[in-house]
């Protein structure tokens, strides 16, 4: 089933009317390329997020084409694919970080539990509190370690009083596996930590708000192997409490940490399946080429 340009335009029209976006349609040039059918089972029994027919346009250029996928509760799902394939773009749709980019349009349906996150009634502040994010490069604020972790709870008004905040900060650092290393220097600036520690600080900062989903955008790409191993271990532990979506360029990492893996290629979601199956027995030719190293 390939959607024609006319249909896409109609889709966009509807979406615009429904959402009341500010960008006039006339300014958006739409080029809808043929897209490829996804191979594999996109649904799960216990979904946390449901995405259906998601399209993303940057000033009219289509970056993501008709992506439909479920993200199960308490699973780690990995997005892999060659660079420029749209995996990061899709990740940023899940907590509407794309809103900060001008001329970026997201069309389609993404639900967190029962709430359509692109619905008007959903506040982006609340959404991002529920769907946290960790970035490619560790980006601690130029504040103390303590203040970095306390930032989220503080802005959301989650705790009353200093004692409670202390406890929350310690618990978050503990859960991020960083407490032992920084216990005695909580007031030092976050930037004084090593790269791997900084990234775990950012994870602690994210889980301090107690999100339901944590998005990780190549969280280890700027780290050395030992720091990477620590983060991977941490991801495995966090699965108990959180749903984790991780974008990675390393297939080994995807194989190590995730239960399911989705392969993206030039804006298409090509294949989705159990991680074991994707890496041992890919069904799509493109997936196979990628994991066997023909390109990427």
């Amino acid at each position, binding site marked *: 089933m390939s959607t024609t340009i006319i249909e896409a335009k109609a889709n966009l029209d509807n979406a615009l009317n429904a959402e009341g976006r500010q960008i006039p349609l006339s300014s958006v040039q739409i080029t809808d390329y043929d897209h490829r059918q996804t191979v594999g089972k996109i649904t799960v029994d216990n979904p946390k997020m449901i995405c259906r027919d998601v399209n993303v346009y940057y000033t009219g250029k289509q970056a993501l084409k008709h992506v439909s996928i479920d993200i199960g509760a308490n699973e780690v799902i990995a997005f892999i694919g060659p660079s420029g394939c749209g995996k990061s773009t899709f990740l940023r749709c899940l907590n509407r970080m794309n809103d900060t980019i001008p001329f970026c349009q997201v069309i389609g349906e993404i639900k967190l539990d029962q709430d359509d996150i692109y619905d008007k009634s959903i506040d982006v502040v*609340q959404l991002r*509190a*529920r769907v946290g994010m960790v970035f490619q490069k560790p980006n601690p604020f130029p504040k103390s370690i303590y203040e970095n972790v306390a930032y989220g709870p503080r802005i959301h*008004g989650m705790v009353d009083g200093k004692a409670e905040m202390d406890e929350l900060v310690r*618990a*978050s650092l*503990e*859960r991020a596996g960083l407490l032992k290393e920084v216990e005695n220097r909580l007031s030092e600036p976050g930037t004084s930590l090593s790269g791997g520690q900084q990234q775990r600080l950012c994870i602690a900062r994210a889980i301090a708000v107690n999100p339901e989903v944590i998005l990780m955008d190549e969280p280890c790409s700027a780290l050395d192997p030992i720091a990477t191993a620590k983060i991977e271990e941490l991801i495995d532990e966090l699965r108990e409490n959180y749903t984790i979506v991780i974008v990675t360029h390393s297939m080994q990492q995807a194989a190590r940490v995730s239960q399911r893996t989705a392969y993206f290629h030039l804006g298409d979601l090509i294949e989705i399946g159990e991680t074991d199956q994707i890496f041992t027995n890919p069904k799509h030719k493109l997936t196979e080429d990628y994991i066997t190293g023909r390109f990427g």
Partner: protein
Amino acid sequence: MNKVISSPDPLQRNIKTIVNASLPRRHAAERRFRWYGLIAVSLGLAFVVLMFGNIISKGYPAFWQTYIQVPIQFDPAVIDPQGNRDPQALQSADYAALVRAGMRRMFPAVEGRLELRALYGLVSSDGALELQNRVLQNPELIGAEQEIWLLASANVDTLIKGNIERSLDETERPIKDNQIGWVDQLQAAGQIEKQFNTILFSSGDSREPEQAGIRGALMGSFYTLLITFLLSFPIGVATAVYLEEFAPKNRWTDLIEVNINNLAAVPSIVFGLLGLAVFINFFGLPRSAPLVGGLVLSLMTLPVIIIAGRAALTSVPPSIREAALGVGASKLQMVGHHVLPLAMPGMLTGSIIGMARALGESAPLLMIGMVAFIVDVPKSFTDPATVLPVQIFLWSDLPERAFVERTSAAIMVLLAFMIVMNGLAIILRKRFERRW
């Protein structure tokens, strides 16, 4: 590695309800903050509009000047009693008497010294000069009678422009009841007219507002800026080229750099002190001269040009330099043939902006005596002169309403120059903007 989280787990909270509860307060704060920002920008823009509006509304009437039509009889007995048309005699004749006679003819009923003096006060003393010029150009006029438009005095001009409150008590306004009566009569007879104010652009300073013009100041500014440009542009470009292309990286060049950055932030008045102490007292250059003004301003403008020039040079990609050196050009040829032409638009842009700043500068020029009352239009770099901003400063101190008007008009001319220069810089930048 198993971890036991202490219970009750502080992390186990319902984020959704907590955040929802905080939302109204936070969105209100967001809106408030946004409003503060918008108010700040609007205030800034409002100041721009207010200043321009204020100055234009005060200044535009100055571009028109009131004239009175007076019947003048070129009486040979006054101009040329000998009747031999001797130029010396024509030059020194009492033309003011002709003006006075003309005024009396318009109002024959006026009598008494005080009354008559008030009557003569309606026209500017410039009238006599005007008649003299006419006669010298055309001696045939002698004996003839002509209706001539003579410049009205500043008070009449102010009255006609509606800037004198007629309801005020007579002692509180500069123009008296009888004068107002005459002016009204003249106006009714169509003998008062507003003409485009050419005097503003053609004459130098004067104590009489209606005769005061900015030509002297404009020429002063021109000479001063010419010196400034001739000195600061080549030296600035040379310095930028040296620092960017030739200078070794050592303490000495570091010192030069620090120096240039600091000079850019030294208060302008300190440059004035330098000019006074070094150029005038030490070298004995003349006070009030555009030459010294230009020297001082070029020292002030140099850092601007150097900084802009270096920025322009760094934007030329190294590949161009390598290409030139690769075909065997000397370093100087590489700079002269390739780098400098490419960087020139950027350097010119910086220089024009620097020159615009120099044009508006007045504080250091006060120090070197370019603040004197100078009637003559300067004709060289060493004539006593003033510049446009200083002329504005001088006029702004004078109490007459007519000078307020002229000050604002002079400001409008100055701002027009600034706009043209900055516009030129922008066009130059747009036109030669290059993306590598």
